[in-house]
């Protein structure tokens, strides 16, 4: 491949897209400058490829080839399709916040009757507000990562959620990313959730496509800040269309004695990558990350996590399960950094891959960088087929082969799904896994 040419082509196309869309992109304060710098940063590498260590198993030049043109602002027809998609995508009992083709859709969102202490705005509104600190926080993602840089350069909208100190939000917030465009396109979103002190909330994010949507790329990013003594439960469900690309980046910081529990499941999209940095900024905090990939066909899903223990007395748990059929490919890269001051860190990471076919591929890359001496850190990784002795036991009890496999697969991902604290959301994740299994039979 002629790398230089590819980069120039992509870069100039993006510059043209950026120029054409200038009117539509938020650009208040320093934002225009930040975008320009981010685009420059992106252009230095272009789409990341296998020679960049972090992208070794997920070569976007091969998997994505190009960045599709920026999605048009949703018109009435697009919004109508998105509304239809909500019939199945909506989750009962949650407050719905909808992004359609990268634009906040107030008409489809539930922003009235907000609980006391909760503020919800579109990203555009928040940036236009001219709050310098908020702006800095929104652009705190590390643009040395090319896909973060691209996202910073191109982002059109998102949801900014601020939850005040002492607010306990019982109704989960559901950010629904809907692709509904009639032309092949990319959408770029950035959202923020700021949780004050002594507060708690549940955030669900799901990625879906409306019927009749052309091929698309969802480029999303999320900044999460969790205050002291606060708890955030986060559920991500990637159920994008079978030919879609989903590149999501996230930066999470925790204050002291805070708790972050995240569950992510990728069953949709042809290519997906979830890259997250989770940083401990206060002592006594805990993070549980649980992930499940359910892949078939030629799907490729990558989870890349960086757990940054910078302060003492924090604990992190990473449990990751991949079920890989046909010639699908699952990637897990988990890096744990324990910085010199982070004594009494307790960090564990366990990944398991279940290979259902000879062509299925799982790549696990655990990395531990430990600079403190009084810590407990561990990681483990396994991959293999379904246990023949368990299969035979089930079949000897009357379960046909596919049913026996389904029961064992469900048990395999169950451990990760069980980590979801909210009963309704746990049932939802189980149902999603169940649908995937039934489609297999």
């Amino acid at each position: 491949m002629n790398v230089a040419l590819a980069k120039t082509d992509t870069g100039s196309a993006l510059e043209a897209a950026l120029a054409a869309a200038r009117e539509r992109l938020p650009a208040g304060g320093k934002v225009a400058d930040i975008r320009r710098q981010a685009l420059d940063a992106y252009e230095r590498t272009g789409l990341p490829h296998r020679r960049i260590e972090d992208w070794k198993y997920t070569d976007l030049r091969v998997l994505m080839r190009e960045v599709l043109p920026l999605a048009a602002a949703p018109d009435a027809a697009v919004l109508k399709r998105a509304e239809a998609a909500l019939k199945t995508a909506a989750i009962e009992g949650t407050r719905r916040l909808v992004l359609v083709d990268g634009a906040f859709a107030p008409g489809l969102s539930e922003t009235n009757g907000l609980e006391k202490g909760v503020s919800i705005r579109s990203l555009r509104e928040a940036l236009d507000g001219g709050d310098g600190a908020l702006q800095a926080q929104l652009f705190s993602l590390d643009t040395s990562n090319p896909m973060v840089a691209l996202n910073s350069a191109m982002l059109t909208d998102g949801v900014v959620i601020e939850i005040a100190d002492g607010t306990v939000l019982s109704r989960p917030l559901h950010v629904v990313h809907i692709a509904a465009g009639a032309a092949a396109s990319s959408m770029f979103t950035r959202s923020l959730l700021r949780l004050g002190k002594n507060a708690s909330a549940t955030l669900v994010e799901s990625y879906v496509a409306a019927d009749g949507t052309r091929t698309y790329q969802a480029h999303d990013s999320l900044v999460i800040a969790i205050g002291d003594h606060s708890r955030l439960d986060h559920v991500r469900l990637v159920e994008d269309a079978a030919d879609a690309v989903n590149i999501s980046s996230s930066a999470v910081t925790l204050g002291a004695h805070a708790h972050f529990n995240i569950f992510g499941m990728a069953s949709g999209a042809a290519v997906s990558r979830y890259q997250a940095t989770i940083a401990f900024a206060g002592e006594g905090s805990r993070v549980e990350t649980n992930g499940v990939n359910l892949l078939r066909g030629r799907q490729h899903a990558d989870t890349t996590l960086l757990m940054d223990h910078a302060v003492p007395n924090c604990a992190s748990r990473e449990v990751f399960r991949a079920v890989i059929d046909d010639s699908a490919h699952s990637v897990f890269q988990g890096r744990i950094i324990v910085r010199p001051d982070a004594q009494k860190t307790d960090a564990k990471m366990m990944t398991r891959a279940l290979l259902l076919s000879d062509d299925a591929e799982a790549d696990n890359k655990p990395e531990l960088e430990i600079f403190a001496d009084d810590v407990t850190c561990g990681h483990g990784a396994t991959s293999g087929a379904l246990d023949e002795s368990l299969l035979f036991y089930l079949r000897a009890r009357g379960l046909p082969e596919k049913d026996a496999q389904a029961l064992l697969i469900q048990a395999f991902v169950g451990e990760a799904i069980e980590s979801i604290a909210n009963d309704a959301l746990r049932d939802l994740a189980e149902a999603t896994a169940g649908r995937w299994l039934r489609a297999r039979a």
Partner: protein
Amino acid sequence: MSLLEVKNLQVRVEDREILHGLSLTVNPGEVHAIMGPNGSGKSTLSHVIAGKPGYEVTGGEILFKGENLLEMAPDERAAKGVFLAFQYPVEIPGVATMNFLRTALNAQRKARGESEYSTPDFLKKVREVAKSLNIPQDMLKRGVNVGFSGGEKKRNEILQMALFEPSLCILDEMDSGLDIDALRIAADGVNALRSPDRAMVVITHYQRLLNYIVPDFVHVMSKGRVVKSGGKELALELEESGYARFEDAA
């Protein structure tokens, strides 16, 4: 018609022949004991009847209710009424016992064209059976056999036997890993399931088990064949003389 007819069965595992022409006929209501030293092929016979992969049948046949059992998948055999109580029941983490039992029972019923049990009907049935076997409800909530003692695992096998109501029960070394009290409980469970419609094949190394489950027929296996058959007194004879003279006979 006999329930089970094993005729001149020859079985290989990889390059080794384990069964060299074994024959056995079992009629409804009968309890057969198969005894023999380690390596005589007892467990191989039970695995081949249940359909475990990895065995190659190179000769002979197995008829079950007159049908060719060897052509059926393991789950079809189960639905037709074959039940193997495993020597070492596997642990299945993440699959709740109750869910497993219901899924298995309904899969068998579905295969036979019978209606599936509703959840309340199933719960009622399972509770009745569990009670009769002294199985605490708590055990049913746990993962299949996860953390169960040897005795609990065997009781779980008997619970399934009672629930699925098979016409042929094969008990593979049911006594292994059980102390005398656990053995008695398990044997009582098995005895309660004896019926004129149901046959049992009890595979064991030791005569001890047969004090609790008294067989109608005893077969001695050695080197992949049945070398002697007789009544229950044959087991006592074996206890005194050991397997050595039968090994010579083979």
